[in-house]
């Protein structure tokens, strides 16, 4: 039995759409091969990519965060730059800086690692707030301004940051303002037994880096074109109302001190669109909203609750699904 195959409303050509679907399938395959047994995480990563969002991994070391980021970059076929955040990292280490060219007697701009398709910021909470702030402009507006000159970043610029929740000593927790600029927060979690067995098996006889062998997925169609397609996925009034109701519920929930911001709401809708696209639907349904809710809300809701999942569950229970 086939699932419905309906195109997003305003996509001109069928072939474009088919190319996009193929590309995403390949990407999904790549990531799943790299990160075994974590289909749902992979889905969210792809959704985040398609919704032009930035990704925050909040998990223990060694769970494959960096591997995932690397294979993502390899699949996109773009340029990856990596910053290992330490307390002595300076803003200009990220954005780049101007240097005086002795020959021309002019300042020349040396782009920093931010000028890449994907910026992997490892252990971002170890950088000083000043350095973290340097990322603000880049993440929100996809440009950096150095010495009064603005430099555009890549169209598909994406930040994948990781942070370690365990070692809080000597760390600078990300402020709410910065957290809000990420689209979602993901926990990879330990793989299951079967996946670990497969993992070990796959490592036998492999000397080099697995990621390198991945094929690029976006040769026939631009990633940016797919992102535009996603932005055109329909969100009808009932679903929008549902989103707004849920958003209001986060603000009125007893345990939540800081509810969802309008920016968060917009990201939520975009993530839902991406999820609908990934499910080959041209329109968004409440299931999409619920599916992406966890990563979107866990990043943003702060307050006096121990279990964010339970709180999100309560919020959902208080709002009726539109019919």
């Amino acid at each position, binding site marked *: *039995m*086939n*699932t*419905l*195959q*309906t195109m997003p*409303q305003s996509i001109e050509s069928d072939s474009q759409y088919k190319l996009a679907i193929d590309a995403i*399938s390949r990407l999904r395959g790549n990531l799943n091969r790299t990160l075994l047994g974590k*289909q*749902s*995480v992979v*889905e*969210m990563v792809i959704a985040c990519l398609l919704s032009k969002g930035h990704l925050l991994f909040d998990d223990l070391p060694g769970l494959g965060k960096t591997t995932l980021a690397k294979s993502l970059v390899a699949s996109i076929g773009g340029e990856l730059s990596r910053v290992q955040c330490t307390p002595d990292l300076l803003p200009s280490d990220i954005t780049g800086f101007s240097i005086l060219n002795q020959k021309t007697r002019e300042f020349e701009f040396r782009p920093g690692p931010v000028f890449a398709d994907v910026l992997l910021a490892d252990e971002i909470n170890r950088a000083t707030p000043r350095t973290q702030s340097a990322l603000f402009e880049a993440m929100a507006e996809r440009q950096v301004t150095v010495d009064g000159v603005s430099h555009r970043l890549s169209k598909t610029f994406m930040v994948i940051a990781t942070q370690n929740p365990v070692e809080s000593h000597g760390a600078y927790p990300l402020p709410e303002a910065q957290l809000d600029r990420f689209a979602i927060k*993901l926990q990879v979690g330990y793989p299951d037994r079967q996946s670990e067995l497969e993992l070990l098996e796959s490592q036998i006889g492999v000397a080099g880096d697995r990621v390198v062998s991945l094929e690029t997925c976006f040769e026939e169609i631009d990633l940016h074109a797919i992102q535009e397609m996603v932005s055109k996925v*329909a969100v*009808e*009034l*009932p*679903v929008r*109302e*549902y989103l*707004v*109701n849920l958003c*209001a*519920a986060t*603000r*009125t*929930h*007893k345990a939540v001190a800081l509810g969802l911001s309008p920016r968060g709401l917009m990201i939520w809708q975009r993530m839902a669109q991406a999820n609908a696209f*990934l*499910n*080959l*639907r*041209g*329109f*968004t*349904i*409440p*299931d999409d909203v*619920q*599916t*992406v*809710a*966890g*990563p979107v809300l*866990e990043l943003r809701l702060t307050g006096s609750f121990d279990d964010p*999942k*339970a709180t*999100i*569950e309560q919020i*959902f*229970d*208080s*709002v*009726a*699904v*539109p*019919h």
Partner: protein
Amino acid sequence: MKSRSLMSSSSLQNGLQRRGGTKWPVVDGREMWTLLATLPAYLAVWIVRAEIAWYPAYVWMLCIATTLTIVFVSKWFSRLSNTSESAERADIPRIVVIVAAIPWIVHFAYRWVQYSNAWNFQGEPLEILVLASLQNMTLAMALISRTAKNRRLTITMGFFLMLFAVVISSHNWVYPVALLYGVMAIWWLMGDHWERLQDGFVGQTRTSSLPMRGGVLVATLLLIGLAASVAVLVAPERVGLSGFLPTSGGKSWADPSARSGVGDGDMLVGARDNASSFGPVESDLFIEDKQPSLYDMISELDGLPPKKKKSEAAVGIDSKVGKTNHEKLATSEASSREFSTVRQAPKYDRKKLADKDSPSLIYYSGPVPQRLAVETFDQFDGVTWTNNETRNASSQNDTSVVYSPVIESAMPSTQLISRSGKPWIYFRHPKREQPTTVAPKTDPPIPHPNWSSAIKIIRFVSTRIPTPDALRCLHIDRIDRPEFFDWTQDGVVKMVDREQVPALTTIRLEAKQRDLHDLRKSEYFESIALSSSDATDVNGLVNQQPTPNETIVNATRQIVAGLPRGWEQIEAIEETLKQEFILDSQAVTPDDSSDPVEHFLKTKRGPAYLFATTAAMMVRSLGHESRLANGFYIDRDSFDVASGQHLIGKKQLHWWPQVSIDGSNWISIEPTPGYSSPPEQWTLFQRAQWAWNVAARWVRNHPWLLMGCMFGLAIAYRKRIFLVDCVLTTAVFFVGRLSIERRVAWSLWLMDKRAELAGCPRPPSKTQRQWFQRMQFRTIISDSRNSDSRSQPTASDSMRYVLNAQDELLYSPCRDGSSKKLIRFQDLETLQQSLLTLNKLWTVQAMRSANMPQQNDAPKLKRTHEYAPDYASIH
């Protein structure tokens, strides 16, 4: 913070936490406060409605019922949809229309009942109905309003209601209620004010809520111009409020239900010619009438000596009452609708008025069915009935044999009692001399609740007053002398020394309500039976009766066979005549017949008087006294809707037998088919006893049927879920035949209902996809059943397919603005098959066997990123 504390202590927290909260049914502090501020206004209108009603108790009962209905309707409908603002916009018109219709429905239902029984409620005037609609709408709005705009509208409506109530009502209760309302409303206003201030501080830019569009502007100007031109061009007196408020001086249209206001409503005017009012005495019409009157005695008493032959008994009245104009006045014999014109006309052109005629003999207002006896006959010689009066007249010896002593002692005595300033003549039945040997345990059945009715004499020329059974008292306005009334020798009330009861006299009657309960007790009957066998010597009536002939005795014996002696036998006679004989006014006895009763028993067909005669004879053959009564039978057929009373003419003449068990109380029985006795007054206990007896007899007679029913019911109870499911499925099958879109929607609705029946209802916050996929994850809904045939979709596939179709219907955008169709669906055939499979496989049984956990202990749904879509189906 400070502002919130103004609202109420509990709303402080509520307000902060639920700011803009949308969860139903938790009531926001502001919503609760709006409701509290609306309730006094709502109550005040009920006070007004009760104040102007004839029977306030009914209005309060109506109040409770209406309030409950409104609460139910509001909650039910707003629960059906979710609580978003657009849903509220959709809910409010629906609910408001329903609750606004309630008073009208009640009104017309009462009017409809009125056709059959004019007794109780006359409905409500138009403006009160309109107000009641507004009142209901206000309460409903207060119950369902979630947005500030609607809350303000509600309060405004409540304010109007309160204003109306205070202006129109003079009831004492209105003022405390208004005070309460004032306090509440001011409190509400303060809260609302602070709320607005706070909203302003948030810094949201407010757009003007009044779009100044050109079209709106032009339309407004046009409306104003139209109103102005109407005001200028049309004469002011025509504009007026002509007929707008029928109770308040409207002139072109009268509302029959109006009963108070600035102008006189019809009902008030109707008091003059309505039988249930105190009649023409209270108007000047009667006094000035040329017809012989009870009341124009002033000159006769004080002036000329009354001519013996022509004089009629009358009462003197105050000269002030009589000092009115001496022109000709109209008399109205017509029913009340026409009377309003009579009321207005005398000021302008009195002479043009024509008297209103009516073919009726009597008007009657009161409970039906009812029989008013005019004459009774106690002796039957086999062909002819006679009574004392006719016998005396034929004997030409007036003075010697007027009353036999026995009969005179049995006649009730008259006594004057003043009730609320009005003279009432009471009739007291003398206690019959009881045999010393047996004293009955109870008094003769004289039930106390009275049943009052009124008659108005129109063309009935007689001194006799038509009266119901067991007349207790009567009243004619200003007739305060008992000697005006006496009993005829055959036991009917008459007016003494008059040629006739004057036309247009209104007589109020109170009778004891029929109560045969004691009579039905066998022990009572036994005691009476003993005494009556002794009494045959004492009572001249029984002695004079010829013994019924053999035919009647035999027929009676057949009828009462197996029944104990008592009232049951008499009822058996009634029933048998009603069931087995045919009423036919043409089937008269042939002239040569010497025994009409025998002929009647043979042909089983005859007019009413033969029914009555036969029944009377049969009762006599059982050893009881009986007689034949002649008079009027009133039932709903004679009801005149326009005037709200019964018009009694020749058609209503009727004959019926009366039975006396104790010699003084005559009880009418009704053997004629198509006629019935007045309803009996039963206490709750008597009713229960009777119901028990009937039920017990029925069970004795139909044991197998009862067992069958019980068995069926037990099975139905055991299989109730299956039955409900069947009904639902059938309904969906029929409803869903219309279009594929509806079939999808209804099928999924059916799934929801089935899940409810199976004990795992889908919570409103879960989507159907989640809920049913969970179900199919937990169990295998017999996919194996049709796994052989490839063409048929499996249960889970069909569910997914239908859900997809529903998503398409609900959430996909309209492409061309037309209504959503599933034309984009690739494979309609598959969808239809899926629907069939869905209905067939996802049964309640299947869901129950799925052992779905309850909502609470269900593991957390895969809502977060752990949720893995079923990608296998995609690839």
